[in-house]
């Protein structure tokens, strides 16, 4: 039972990590708090489902289609918010992303209907076992993708010119612009990256359980928990906290009613905020 919870927790945590990686970069670089993140996750899952059930595309093709659709949506949303982001008007940015999320949820309910749906992924049928613990090929895919995305983000941010530009804008947008960096384009790139990560998380975690257009709120809370617990903009901390949160949820769910697991994690967050307001992994 402990091994089963461990494997399940690892898959859950990898899903959380994939969900949170874009947000970590977004908050670190653009100081943009995106409340529509959960709805982008929901859209990633639903566009994948739609492409499979309506157009008969195989899962492997439907996922990239969903990513492109959400990326285009991300471009539109960020272009609308460009001036607000450049002004760093955090209050209005939070409010407008909240409105976007609500708008996307209403739109998706009209478009996709209110019934629960399942994403048909061939990997979900592939049963694997490790001792007493059972898992699927889909779980393996989630873990592999999460690790790959963290590695990619870490290398791009730390080692490339693009990463230097993002870090420069994060440090001081005005100074970065003096050096000829187009801050608006950096914000756009970071926002689209974050949207695509959320959509990918939705497309690969979605097949594990039935999906609803009303989902996304729990997911955005999980993202907050990861980002705030890890300390804002802390990439490695984010991965560790996400996996830890997945394990916490899985173990909590084995011994207590699973519905309360996010609430229990939230109580942990409140305690951490009182003791270490800068986050668990932050220096200082």
């Amino acid at each position, binding site marked *: 039972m402990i091994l089963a919870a461990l494997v399940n927790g690892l898959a859950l945590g990898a899903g959380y990590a994939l969900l949170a990686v874009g947000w970590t970069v977004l908050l670190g670089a653009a100081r943009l708090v995106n409340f529509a993140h959960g709805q982008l996750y929901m859209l990633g899952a639903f566009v994948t489902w739609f492409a499979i059930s309506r157009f008969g595309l195989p899962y492997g093709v439907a996922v990239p289609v969903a990513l492109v659709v959400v990326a285009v949506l991300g471009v539109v949303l960020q272009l609308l918010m460009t001036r607000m982001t450049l002004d760093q008007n955090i209050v209005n940015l939070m409010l*407008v992303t909240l409105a976007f999320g609500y708008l996307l949820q209403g739109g998706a309910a009209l478009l996709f209907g209110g019934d629960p749906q399942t994403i048909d992924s061939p990997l979900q049928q592939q049963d694997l076992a490790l001792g007493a613990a059972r898992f699927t090929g889909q779980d393996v895919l989630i873990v592999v993708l999460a690790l790959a995305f963290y590695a990619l983000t870490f290398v791009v941010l730390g080692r490339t010119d693009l990463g230097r530009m993002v870090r420069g804008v994060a440090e001081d947008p005005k100074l970065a612009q003096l050096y000829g960096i187009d801050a608006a384009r950096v914000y756009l790139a970071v926002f689209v990256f974050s949207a695509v990560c959320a959509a990918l998380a939705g497309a690969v975690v979605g097949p594990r359980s039935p999906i609803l257009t009303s989902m996304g709120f*729990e997911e955005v809370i999980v993202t907050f928990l990861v980002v705030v617990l890890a300390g804002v903009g802390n990439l490695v901390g984010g991965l560790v906290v996400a996996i830890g949160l997945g394990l916490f949820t899985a173990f909590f769910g084995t011994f207590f009613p699973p*519905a309360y697991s996010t609430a229990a994690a939230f109580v942990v967050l409140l305690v951490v905020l009182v003791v270490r307001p800068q986050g668990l992994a932050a220096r200082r």
Partner: protein
Amino acid sequence: MTADVATRGTTGAPAARRVPTWARALLWVVLVALAYLLPSLLGGSDRIYTTVVLVAIFAIMSYGVDVVLSYLGEVSLGHTLFWAAGAYTTAILAVRSGWTPIPALLASIVVTVLLALLLGLATLRTREFVFSLVTYAAAIIGLTVVQNTQALGGSDGVVGVPLLELPAFGGTYVARTNAELWPIALVCLVLVVLLVARFRRSRLGTTALMAQMNGELSTAMGVDVRRTRMLVFVLSAPITALAGWLYAYQRSYVSPDLLSPTFLLFMLTAVILPGRRLLLGPLVGALLLTSQQQLASLGGDADKIVLGGVLAVVLLASPTGLVGIWHGLVRRVRGSRR
């Protein structure tokens, strides 16, 4: 008609300052009397009374957020928690323990103040957006917890809230219909508007505004920004709880939907649509939104698009709200005359 009343109250504010106090008080009394007669002037149907009662309740609910958003400049996304706490405390005490309305209201206020203290203390030393994240998380998690806790009625909620009975001269006043609830709702609304008006002129209100405009300067002038934030947040919670108390009696049941993002979006839009920092702003916002939902509804999902769309468009096109658009028009007209 109420829209007329409200806009006169807001845009007429500079002009009213030259009017003596007694005349201003008289004006307000006339406005309240007109508001009281408004539903019967509009025909007095049950639908009209339902709408005006809901406008009053939702306006009070929005005033709680208004105090934090307009004057403190912080985004509380947890006020649905206070709204639901007010309604649930009332419903549970009234249904299961037979409490009368006034003690139930006092208990609701105590519960929400404790909740606000808890959230406020936890976010005391954090950066600005963490406050919003934590309050949002509290509301969403509150929804899951209430849905899954049988002691709070689970996903069915608590049904059978008795009628609102208040002690009155020579017996009790029983609100059996929305028409009979209207005077109580209006009195609550007037009291809340008076409280917010008093807050705007108070030391706490001006300090909050100063902390919003320039936090470092106000710290340098000896203002404890954290303490100000805490006090304003704790003050705002019972305002929203009062609306929850009224709503429990109006609807005669409470359910987890009180914690849904619908009410959150409603509160924020009601404050932002007319323009922030207007005394009657949340009332005008609640009037516009409730009228759409009650009298011109397009169905649940389409109404979501309307609500989210209105908030997004206002923020992107005119962050200062309808008042900002109005000022822009006035400036353009004056400019073209020259």
